[in-house]
C-alpha cells in the first residue's frame, strides 16, 4: 500500500516536473526566430540587433519569439563592456533571449588567461551550434545576417 502511494506521488512529481520543463520550452508565439552571430565583423553586431528590433516591431506583442545565439568571435556581442550593451539590455527586457556558447567561452578563457565578463542577460549554453540545432528542431526559423 505504502509502495503504491509512493508510486503515485512519484508519478505526480514527475508530471509536475515534466509540465514545468515543457512550459519553459513551449511557446505560444506564432513565429520563432533564432538569430546566429559568429562573425568578427563589428557591423554584424549592429545588424543582428537591428534584425531583432525589426522582428519585434513587425509582429503583435507575444506573437514572435527571438533567441540570439553567439559563438566564436561573435560572442563579443555579449561581453559586458560591449559598446552595444545598452541595446542588448533593452532587447532582453523586450523578451529577446541571448545565448552564449560555453565552448567559445572556455576557449577565450584559455587565450586570455581569465574569463571574459559577459552581459548578465546572456545565458551560457553548452554549445552555441548545438543550441541552434535544438531550436531549429523545435521549429525556429534560422537566420544568420
Amino acid at each position: 500500500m505504502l509502495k503504491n502511494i509512493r508510486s503515485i506521488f512519484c508519478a505526480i512529481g514527475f508530471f509536475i516536473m515534466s509540465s514545468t520543463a515543457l512550459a519553459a520550452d513551449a511557446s505560444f508565439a506564432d513565429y520563432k526566430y533564432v538569430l546566429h552571430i559568429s562573425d568578427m565583423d563589428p557591423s554584424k553586431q549592429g545588424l543582428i540587433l537591428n534584425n531583432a528590433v525589426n522582428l519585434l516591431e513587425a509582429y503583435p506583442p507575444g506573437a514572435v519569439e527571438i533567441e540570439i545565439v553567439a559563438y566564436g568571435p561573435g560572442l563579443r556581442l555579449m561581453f559586458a563592456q560591449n559598446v552595444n550593451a545598452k541595446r542588448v539590455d533593452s532587447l532582453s527586457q523586450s523578451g529577446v533571449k541571448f545565448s552564449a556558447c560555453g565552448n567559445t567561452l572556455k576557449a577565450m578563457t584559455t587565450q586570455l588567461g581569465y574569463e571574459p565578463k559577459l552581459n548578465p542577460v546572456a545565458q551560457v549554453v553548452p554549445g552555441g551550434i548545438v543550441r541552434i540545432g535544438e531550436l531549429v528542431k523545435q521549429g525556429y526559423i534560422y537566420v544568420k545576417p
Partner: protein
Amino acid sequence: MGEKKLFKRTLVGTTFTVCLAVAGTASALDWLMLQGTEPDGASAPVKVWGFIQANYQKDYSTANAGGAYVPAKLIGPNLNAQSGFTLAHAQVGVRGTGFPLDEHINYFMLLEAGNAATNRSSSGSNGVVVTDASATLNYIKGARVRVGLFKYPGSEEGLQSLVKTDYINFTEGANFLLLERFPNATYTANVGPFTQAQLQNGSNINAFTGTVGGFRDTGVQVFDSFDLGKDWNLSYAAMLGNGSGIEFDNVDGQYDQYLYISAEKNLASTGPANGLKFFAWNQSGQRLADVTNDTVANRKLYDRKRSGLGVKYMAKPYRATFEYITADGMIFEGPDKPSYYFANTANPAGTNNGADAKANAWYLDGGWYIPGTKWELDARYDILDANTGRNDEHKFSKWTLGTQYNINPMAKVTANYEIRTYDCTASSPQCTNADANLKGVGNKFSLQVTAAF
C-alpha cells in the same frame, strides 16, 4: 593666479571629481575618444580607411608694384602659381584592435601621400609620410594612455578629422598660430617676393627646411571620457611631447605640455552626429631658433605658448562653432620669413620679430543643412591679430562663404569663396613696407571633392 595655473587647477580638480564616474562612450564630437580608442567589444583587428581630397583653387590677388608676389597671393603648399588643381590629401590608414578579444590595446596608423603641407618643405615633396602611428593602452579606468605620433589635444580646427572639416582652407589663426612651421637649424634670410617669371624659373618662396607640424606631436597622452549622466560626458587629456610635429626629433631637449578638457552633450537622439561641446586647451613648450642675422650659429630657446577655448553646436539643420586662441612666442610670419622676421630688414638684436611676439585669433562658423536636400550652406568669419602691440602688428581677416553637396555620407563637394583683408595696422615704416604687399591680397575661390572610405 595666472591664467595657465588656473586652467591647470581647474583641469586637475575636475578630473579627480569625475574619476568616480563611469567611463562613457564617445559622443560624435569627442575627437579624443573617436581617434584614440576603438568601440569596446566591437572593433575589427584591421580596419582600412582613408580619404582623397582633390581641389582647384584660384587666387585673385594682385602683384605688388614690382610685379612680385608674396606667399599669401599664391596657392599652397607649392606657392608658385595663382591657380591650379592639386591633390590636397591622399591619406590611407589602418586602425583597430590587434587581438579583438582583448580590448585593452588598440592602434591607429595613417599615411599622407597627397600634396599636403605635412610632406612638403623647401626641398620639395617628401613623398609619403607617416602622420599618425599610435597605440592606446586602456588598462587604467579613467587614465587611458596613448603613445606614439598623433594629433595633440588642442584646437577644434586642428583636432577634428579633415574629412569632417566644412571648409577647404584653415582660418588665418589656425594657419599662422597652430599649423606650426619649425625653425631652420641656422639663420635663413627672407626670400621673395618673386615675380611670375622668377617663380616659373624655380624660385622657391618657402624657405623652411622642415614640414609643417600638422597639429601633431610624438609623445605620451593620458586621457579618458566620463559619463556624467543625462547624456553629458566630460573628457580630458594631458600630453607630453617632443614639440616637433611629425618629425621624430627633440634636439632642444625640451618637452611640450598639452592640456585639454571638454564637456559634451550627446544629442545623438536627434541625429547621429549631433552634439554640443564646450572645450578649453593649453599648450606650452620651447623652440630653438636662430633669429639673428650675424652669421654666427647662436640658436636660443624661445617660449611657445598657445591656449584656446570654444564651443561647438551641431544639431541638424544647424551648426555653429566659436573658438578664441591666444599665442605667445614663435609667431609664424610667413613661409618666406623662416627666421621669423616680418620685415625684410633683419634685426641683429633679435627683437621685434615673431619669436617673442604675441598674437590672438578667433573665428565664428555657422552652417545650415537645407532640409530635404543634400545641400549645406556655410559661412565663417575669422581674424588674426599678430605681433600685437609691435610696430609691425598686422591683422588678417577673412570671410569664407561656402556650400557643400553631400553626395553620400562618405563623399561631398565643397565650394568656398574667401573674402580676405590683410593689413599691417601700425603706423611705422615696417608697416609701410608690409602693406605694399599685403594690400594686394585678394579673394580666393576653391572647389574640392572629398571621397572617404
